[in-house]
């Protein structure tokens, strides 16, 4: 065990902290899941990119700093600590990009990654369909080969695409071999949303933001270069993305450490209204946020030493999503009647409720944990 940071990591932290202190918007931005808020967030993310803080772990040629995974964690911690805005480009940067690094051709990497880092291409996730949620292999959108045009014709519907109405591109699975078994015959496509035959329709989420979208495909054409990782190979490519989604790349500990600190501050502000029962719950949440950080540090050590997280990312997913709700529920109880007013805790609570649903429901994650980590039989 050696939990001391190396000198260059401390230096990286200081540099990040200074830059964030000087550049984070003084006033909180409007929600990035609304059209106006999204535009304001893009301005912020382009400022991040201008000083090479938007994708710190990427190679320098793509706009990054070639930071180690440890430094990435440090950056995340400082990012949240500084109260910096939520990243509206995260589906691209944290979910799609690792998959492009792993499965993309050199040409795809060179074309797509710099534009993603610069918040020029804005990526929406196209996993869910009206008939397929956590059962991702149940999708029915299809892609049919168009030999003459040298590409594919997409048809079907994706839904619940986060910020889909504001994005420029979508990544998702399409069935390319209807005869094959469920998990086979799927292909991972990268689709510009302005392609002819693609229609995007935004709709409101539980919290009232218009952050969701339906995306309809009517024989929309994409060239062969839109295939990521090989025709009919989509399932294994997608599993790489979902690992990122459940694991630490989407939910680094910084976010929860910040929320736990805010909860402690809230308990302090509420004085006697914070009963001992509620204070006890504050302590529980703080401890769990701390545990999530320690778990992550251990997990990163494993990854650095060549022991990939694999199904263990399902542990992250269940833990952070349940922690997020507990943090917000405790805050709302501390607020008492003030929780009627629409504010950061109220909005955060509503958003936290999506955690156990998206990225594979927690019921599915518990099945994965039981089957793949504990070795219990499938049914």
């Amino acid at each position, binding site marked *: *065990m*050696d*939990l*001391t*940071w*190396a000198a260059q*990591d401390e230096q990286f932290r200081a540099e990040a902290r200074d830059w964030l202190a000087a550049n984070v918007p003084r006033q909180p931005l409007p929600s990035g899941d609304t059209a106006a808020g999204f535009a304001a967030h893009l301005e912020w993310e382009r400022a991040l990119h201008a000083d090479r803080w938007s994708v710190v772990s990427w190679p320098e040629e793509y706009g990054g700093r070639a930071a180690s995974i*440890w430094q990435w964690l440090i950056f995340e911690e400082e990012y949240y600590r500084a109260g910096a805005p939520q990243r509206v480009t995260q589906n691209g940067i944290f979910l799609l990009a690792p998959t492009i690094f792993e499965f993309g051709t050199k040409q795809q990497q060179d074309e797509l990654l710099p534009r993603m880092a610069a918040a020029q291409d804005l990526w929406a996730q196209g996993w869910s369909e009206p008939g397929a949620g956590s059962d991702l292999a149940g999708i029915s959108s299809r892609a049919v080969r168009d030999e003459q045009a040298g590409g594919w014709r997409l048809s079907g519907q994706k839904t619940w695409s986060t910020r889909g109405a504001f994005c420029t591109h979508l990544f998702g699975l399409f069935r390319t071999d209807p005869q094959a078994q469920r998990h086979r015959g799927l292909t991972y496509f990268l689709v510009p949303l302005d392609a002819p035959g693609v229609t995007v329709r935004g709709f409101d989420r539980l919290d009232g933001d218009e952050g969701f979208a339906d995306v309809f495909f009517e024989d929309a054409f994409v060239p062969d270069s839109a295939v990521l990782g090989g025709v009919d190979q989509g399932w294994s490519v997608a599993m790489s993305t979902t690992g990122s989604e459940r694991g630490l790349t989407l939910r680094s500990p910084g976010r929860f450490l910040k929320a736990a600190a805010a909860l*402690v501050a809230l*308990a*302090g502000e509420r004085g*006697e209204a*914070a*009963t*001992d029962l509620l*204070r*006890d719950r*504050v*302590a*529980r949440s*703080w*401890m*769990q946020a*701390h*545990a*999530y950080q*320690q*778990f992550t*540090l*251990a997990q*990163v*050590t*494993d990854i650095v*030493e060549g022991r990939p997280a694999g199904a263990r990312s399902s*542990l992250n997913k*269940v*833990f952070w999503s349940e922690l997020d709700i507990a943090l917000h529920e405790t805050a709302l109880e501390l607020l008492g009647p003030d929780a009627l007013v629409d504010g950061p805790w109220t909005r955060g609570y509503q958003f936290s409720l999506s955690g156990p649903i998206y990225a594979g429901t927690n*019921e599915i*994650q*518990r*099945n994965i*944990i*039981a*089957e793949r*980590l*504990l*070795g*219990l*039989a*499938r*049914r």
Partner: protein
Amino acid sequence: MRFAPSDEQRELEAVVRQVLTDRCPPGTVRAGAGSAQVAALAESLAGLGVAGLLVAESDGGLGLDENHLVSVFEQIGYAAAPLPLTATLAVAPAVLSSGAPDLLVKLVEGGLTVGADPAVTGHVAFGSGVDLVLRGGFGGTGPIEILDVSDAAASTSPSVDVALDLTGYADARLVATVDDPQVVRLAWERGVLATSAELIGLSRRMLELTVEHVRAREQFGAPIGSFQAVKHHLATALLHLEFAAPVVAAAGFELAAGVPGRLRSLATAKALTSEAAHVVGRAALQCHGAIGYTTEYDLHLFLKRSWALESSWGSAAWHRAVLLEDLGVGLTGVRPAS
């Protein structure tokens, strides 16, 4: 930054595990205090020199630190070893070094068994046959009395954990009183850390026993482990265990490195391991069904030990109260007594 046991830690862990596997099967836990099996176990552990784990090499010890303490106590918990090892291995070195240095040599040689009663309850866990009792120091404050109980009148009390061998002593001889705040603090921290690590080991064992059971046991024509309700119980148990264990490891590192903010990690370690053991134990019992609710089956040995440790060295609620004080939002009422 490297959040993983060192090779040295792993080696020590493997050696201790081997001795416990050989010498501390469930039959030994059942045999309990005064049995030949437990005496043989104590002798084997003494042979490893683990009593000198935290004692400097210049004093004849192994000169290791709290990182190793965590590795060793996880194994002790896994085996539910029925000996006062927290007091002897974790607490005694600093206390004796300060208050009765002449006894340190005997401790290192494995010739001294020490019990502890930090909360001054009058009960010493695994207490019959101990030579010394360290009384007081709960919460890391107040004096710790070193009592020689070799000639004192002993009486045992029934415990929730039948193997706990709860012993009280009358007319003990006071050897010394240690009131150096740093020593008392360190003794407490190590006691809490060792107990937390022990709870991780106990939780791991209970979960393993249960996984083994639900894979083999069939009902409705299928292994019960294939039912989603059972899977979810055990997935939740694993979550509690997996997110508590790194906190204990981090607290061990912080103690070893003397990190100033270690109080928070330590309080978190004990609170989360107590809760984890509780949740894992409940899931284990439920998934075993009626067989688990017997004393013929081994589960109860680990379950009851975990109950005993949950309420020793500060309960989960007590440690949360400590954390709150440190965070500057202490309780408005009274902190739980223990």
